[in-house]
């Protein structure tokens, strides 16, 4: 009896400990949020909500505005998602359904390894390998055949929105494809067998049964990838051209929130400047937090449906 009690006590202690550890992380996030709000107060008092709408970023005149950076962040991340989505879903389908069994583990391992490469390495590779390719081959061809579109106007510099989008796409493919693969693998066998039994082809099984079944989970994976794309820093800084602009052209240099913080924080020499950079961080924090929360919610909802259905 006593022995049993000790065991129970240990259980309680363990539960308390793990709860405490989770609480620390929660408090840390809240602490970061508060610190960001407090430290950006100076900038908020100076510019108010105009900060979100102003195009100016002039450290000499002490004028700061977030609009070109928000534009660059959303544009580059969305572009990256457009590139990464079909490739990632393709990889996920191939690895969960079509690839020979012996191939699945090693290939998914290698793809997940891509996520472990430091982002500055992607950046330097981008600058020294991808940029010349874009400059001499890809962008001139696009300009020649599609130059009438506003998307492909301007001088092909090699650096800019398009190259930035491609780099980010390469970096988020592992995230989206590996989660999507897990989700497709979790589709119950009886669902697939039923589809095949009523005479569906493999293609139809994948498109009409498996993807709809995992839909909210895959959307969650996409949002997680998008969150990473929004916050990507070093790799993007190396290839995006670092020029605040609101251009629609994919050839034009642009700027993202994460990049401007990485570039200017170390040499920001007066308080309003630092505060404005921190307000940018706050904007990014809120955006990525919202997106991640949405992604988690979708993943959770999918799991719940699964439990109800089975």
């Amino acid at each position, binding site marked *: 009896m006593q022995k049993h009690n000790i065991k129970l006590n240990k259980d309680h202690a363990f539960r308390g400990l793990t709860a405490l550890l989770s609480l620390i992380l929660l408090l840390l996030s809240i602490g970061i949020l508060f610190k960001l709000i407090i430290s950006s107060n100076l900038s908020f008092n100076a510019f108010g909500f105009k900060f979100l709408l102003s195009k100016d970023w002039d450290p*000499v*005149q002490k004028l700061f505005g977030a609009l070109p950076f928000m534009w660059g962040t959303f544009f580059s991340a969305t572009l990256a998602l457009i590139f990464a989505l079909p490739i990632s879903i393709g990889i996920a389908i191939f690895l969960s359904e079509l690839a020979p069994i012996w191939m699945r583990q090693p290939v998914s391992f290698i793809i997940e390894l891509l996520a472990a490469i430091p982002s500055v390495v992607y950046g330097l590779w981008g600058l020294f390998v991808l940029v010349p390719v874009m*400059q001499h081959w890809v962008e001139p061809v696009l300009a020649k055949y599609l130059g009438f579109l506003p998307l492909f106007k301007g001088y092909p*510099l*090699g650096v800019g929105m398009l190259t930035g989008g491609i780099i980010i796409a390469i970096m988020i493919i592992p995230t989206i494809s590996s989660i999507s693969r897990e989700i497709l693998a979790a589709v119950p066998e009886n669902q697939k067998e039923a589809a095949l039994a009523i005479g569906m082809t493999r293609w139809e099984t994948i498109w009409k049964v498996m993807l709809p079944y995992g839909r909210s989970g895959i959307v969650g994976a996409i949002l997680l990838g998008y969150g990473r794309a929004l916050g990507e820093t070093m790799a993007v*800084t190396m290839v995006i051209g670092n020029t605040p602009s609101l251009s629609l052209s994919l050839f034009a*240099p642009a*700027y993202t929130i994460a990049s401007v913080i990485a570039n200017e924080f*170390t040499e920001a*020499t007066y308080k309003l400047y630092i505060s404005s950079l921190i307000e940018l961080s706050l904007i990014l924090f809120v955006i990525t937090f919202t997106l991640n929360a949405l992604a988690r919610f979708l993943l959770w909802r999918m799991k719940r449906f699964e439990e109800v259905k089975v």
Partner: protein
Amino acid sequence: MKRALKLALVIAIVLSFTTAYAAEILNGAGATFPYPLYSKWFYNYEKQTGVKINYQSIGSGGGIQQIEAGTVDFGASDAPLPKEELDKHGLFQFPTVAGSEAIAYNLPGIPTGLKLTPEVIADMYLGKITKWNDQRIKELNPNLNLPDMPVIVVHRSDGSGTTNIFTWFLGDVSSEWKTKVGSGTSVKWPVGIGGKGNEGVAGLVKQTAGAVGYVELAYVIETKMTHALVRNRDGHYLYPSIETTVAAASNANVPPDFYVKFTYSKGKNSYPIAGFTYYIVRKNMDRNKLSTFIKFVEWAYKHGNADAKALDYVPMPDSLKHKALTALKKL
């Protein structure tokens, strides 16, 4: 019990060492541009004297913040602080070494030696000269076959002392630059693309035909970039080098707060795009630490020149070293 005693003994010994050597350790933080040289100096100095100097190259902004807060013994900044800022926080600054910047370009078939005037450089960065075969560049280089190519202006995207010096120079030669853009470690560039760090600017210039950018001398020499002859104030065309930078620094006007600016300075042999990097200390610094620090600065001024030259930094003129040391000793 025995173990506890042993532990206490060890802690006591360790503590006694740290207090004995407290004055023999200095902590600094700041600028990244002079970091390769500083770390070499600190390493050699520790080997010779046993005095340890820790330095975190977190950027000038961080260095200034930390010395203002008093969390380090000395800060380092690429751009000098204005007098009001120094007085407000009770700080003292003085220069350590100089650096100069080359105007690097990438024009197929045209080697090092394109002649450029400060006005032409300013107008390229203002977006007013947009083609390499512009009449004004042609006139300076009648023997070169300049291509019909757009001028692609490259600048630093990260805040940097290099940008501060370059924008000082542009402000000196162009009143339009001075009023429209101004100078600082980051500015609102009218045109062009930004590269992160010297390596970013150098990478963009090397890969983009028609590009022009300002890059630190050391980087240009190490990576063999083609760079321009720049006309100085007296009308002579010069390359950046240790000699032409020392010449410019010798002609600098030095105020008591050491806010020294010698871009576009007078003198036949003065290269126009150069500046100093600085140490900053608190005037009320601990006296023991101050004397340790002064000894190090004396050593660095005396024995650090070879290290500086080997890394393509420019040692200060002797007269200025003397002035700085005298002022430092008066604290």
